[in-house]
């Protein structure tokens, strides 16, 4: 059989109609996101919104590592910290412009990713988890102990982000900057996912030995995933620094790493929509629960547990729609089978 000119899409259920529906959904969501600040002037809402976007960026980065390549990384905040601190130090002490600090931030993050990743990425997931956790702790400890990083107080009075002649100084401004980042990272993730890189990562996640038989150099590809995650994390950190104007080690600890993992898992591993939605949930839930005062994290915990028990695969599991398609198809198949299958008599008894 020669397949005609149309390219079979990779997402199985994505028939033409489905694709149009999905694209228009994306369009509507994008327009809604762009117009959102028109509907609220509250710096609080916009502040929460840009922090949610920031967490989305981080979740998209971690999704490459955990969701695609299947490596449990419990120290992802380290790359976030590296980006933020590089920007913080260079902008306050060396008076670099924020944009210019992104490059060295990414470079440092990549070097760190290579140093920590090279010897450890071959480890099994649980062992990797504790090593990455340790890496996160190490970066945080360094930030606390060094004078250059401002010790436990951190770095403050970080100048505002300027893009060309535009100074980004309001929550609305950062909302849009992060929105651009989210869209960029989501697109980046999608493209990677549908290329040989994405397939290689999934293969590694599913069965590492078999992946090798595909000619995939698993160690290299794990490292790529880790490095891509680091790049995304450090860029996000670089923008986070001016957005908050001050950074301190407390923001880059284990709990922050866990928050990012939570975002990815709540959304559904490996799913780009899931990562974004999960991040929104993780950022917004505790804010919504503010009326519970001191019990707000208790409520958050309960919500988290209930969510996981009810939807253990996350809110938007990878190929959620595919599962739906399969179910419909199975039902149809059963119906037709019921109609057409004559029941043969039991020969032993006839």
């Amino acid at each position, binding site marked *: 059989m020669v397949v005609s000119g149309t390219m079979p899409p990779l997402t199985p259920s994505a028939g033409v109609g489905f694709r149009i529906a999905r694209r228009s959904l994306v369009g509507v969501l994008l327009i809604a996101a762009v117009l959102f600040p028109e509907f609220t002037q*509250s*710096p*609080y809402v916009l*502040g*929460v919104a840009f*922090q949610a976007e920031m967490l989305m960026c981080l979740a998209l980065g971690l999704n490459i590592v955990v969701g695609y390549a299947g490596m449990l990384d419990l120290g992802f905040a380290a790359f976030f910290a590296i980006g933020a601190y590089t920007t913080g130090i260079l902008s306050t002490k060396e008076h670099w412009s924020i944009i210019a600090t992104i490059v060295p931030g990414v470079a440092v993050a990549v070097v760190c990713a290579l140093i920590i990743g090279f010897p450890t990425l071959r480890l099994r997931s649980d062992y990797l988890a504790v090593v990455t956790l340790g890496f996160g702790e190490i970066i945080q400890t360094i930030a*606390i*102990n060094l004078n250059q990083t*401002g*010790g*436990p*107080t*951190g770095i*403050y*009075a970080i100048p505002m982000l300027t893009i060309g002649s535009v100074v980004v100084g309001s*929550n609305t401004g950062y909302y849009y900057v992060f929105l651009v980042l989210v869209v960029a990272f989501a697109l980046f993730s999608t493209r990677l996912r549908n290329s040989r890189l994405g397939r290689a990562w999934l293969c590694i996640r599913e069965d590492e030995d078999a992946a090798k038989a595909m000619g995939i150099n698993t160690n290299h590809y794990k490292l790529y995933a880790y490095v891509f995650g680091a790049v995304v994390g450090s860029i996000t950190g670089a923008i986070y620094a001016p957005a*908050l*104007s*001050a*950074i*301190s*080690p*407390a*923001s880059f600890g284990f709990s922050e790493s866990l928050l990012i993992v939570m975002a990815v898992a709540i959304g559904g591993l490996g799913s780009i929509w899931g990562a974004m939605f999960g991040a929104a949930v993780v950022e917004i839930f*505790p*804010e919504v629960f*503010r009326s519970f*005062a*001191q019990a*707000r*994290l208790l409520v958050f915990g309960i919500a988290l547990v209930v969510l996981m028990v009810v939807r253990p695969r996350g809110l938007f599991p990878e190929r959620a729609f595919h599962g739906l398609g399969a179910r419909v198809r199975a039902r149809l198949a059963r119906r037709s089978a019921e109609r057409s299958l004559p029941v043969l008599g039991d020969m032993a008894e006839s």
Partner: protein
Amino acid sequence: MNRKSFGLRVIASGLLVAGMLTVAASVSTVTAAGAAKKLPPYLIGVPMPMTGAEAQAGTQIYNAELMAAQQINKHGGVLGHPIKLLEQDDACDAGTAVNAVNLLVSKGVKAFVGGYCSGSVLPTEPIISRAGLPYVMPAANSPELTTGGYKDMFLIDPSGSGDGAEAAAFFKQQGITKIYIIDDQSSFGVAIADAAAKDVAAAGGTVVDGGVQSIPATSNDFSAVISQIKSSGATGIYWSGYFSQAAQFATQLNAAGVIGPNGTAKFVVADGSVDATYLSAAGAAANGTYATIAALASGVGNVLGSHADKVFNLAYRKEFKSAPGPYSAFGYDAITALVLAAKHVHSIVPKRVNAGLRTLHFVGLTGKISFDKTGNRLGATMDLLEVVNGKYTLAKPQP
């Protein structure tokens, strides 16, 4: 500092009570006039850690602020406006703090009294500064808080330089030259420890083991550090951190024979460690240990016999069924400071209140309170306390 000045302060504390009554009286006259008008509440935002590692301190400070507000409201509020505290959890996390402050600003607060961890206060400063609101911080003490280029930040807590100098003076007085300084890696503890290290060096002492050491605030085992202290030969130990770890440190130092009946070293803690829990948790091991603290600060009032402090302590216990913490009195004073400033300028308009805070002079629970140009507290006096028979007493002689 000497005994004489302490005596003076006992008198001062008497004045304080009078002062409070005056506040109440003057305020109540205004209320009497304005009662019919039913003025809108004076909204004060309180971003404070209510969850997470610092929840205890946050709660203790907030409670004291609440108490101050209630007392003031009972006497008619501020220029007729009843005080309303809007508390929001900042969890000592930068992002959460920014959200909390944004939320409070959007709710129209006229002033901020709160903040605990410098790291989560710093990113909120530009927001508050942009809104032109006064920010009085009861317990955050990092020098960075007032040097970030944002005006109208006021620090009630004088620790840092004061504590360090007091400790250095004590060690010098005791003839102790080898000193081991250790902090808890919090910005609070590090600020004091670094200042102490400078003062010790200036006083001719040596900070052994290569400078200030740190142990994470989450750690409760000091055995490795104690081994280091032993081998370093230090006879003075200065702990700059919180009471919980201080108690464990003291207990383990005592068990290891470094301090206590057979010990040769003196253990001094900074004011974050002055707390009833320190005494009860360390038990006998606390005896013979020292603490540096801003004069008259809470928690010690009962033993020191300050009347105002005693009143405060009793009232707090009655209201919240627990003891106040080391910074509760600072919280009380922060509210008082704000209210007195407003009264001084006869306005609750933020701009005017800011000006009022700059020219403020009064004696609070924690001693004389006024601010320098940058918003740091002026004229704070320090005490050295010694634990005798499970109680804080004023060390004799004062260094």
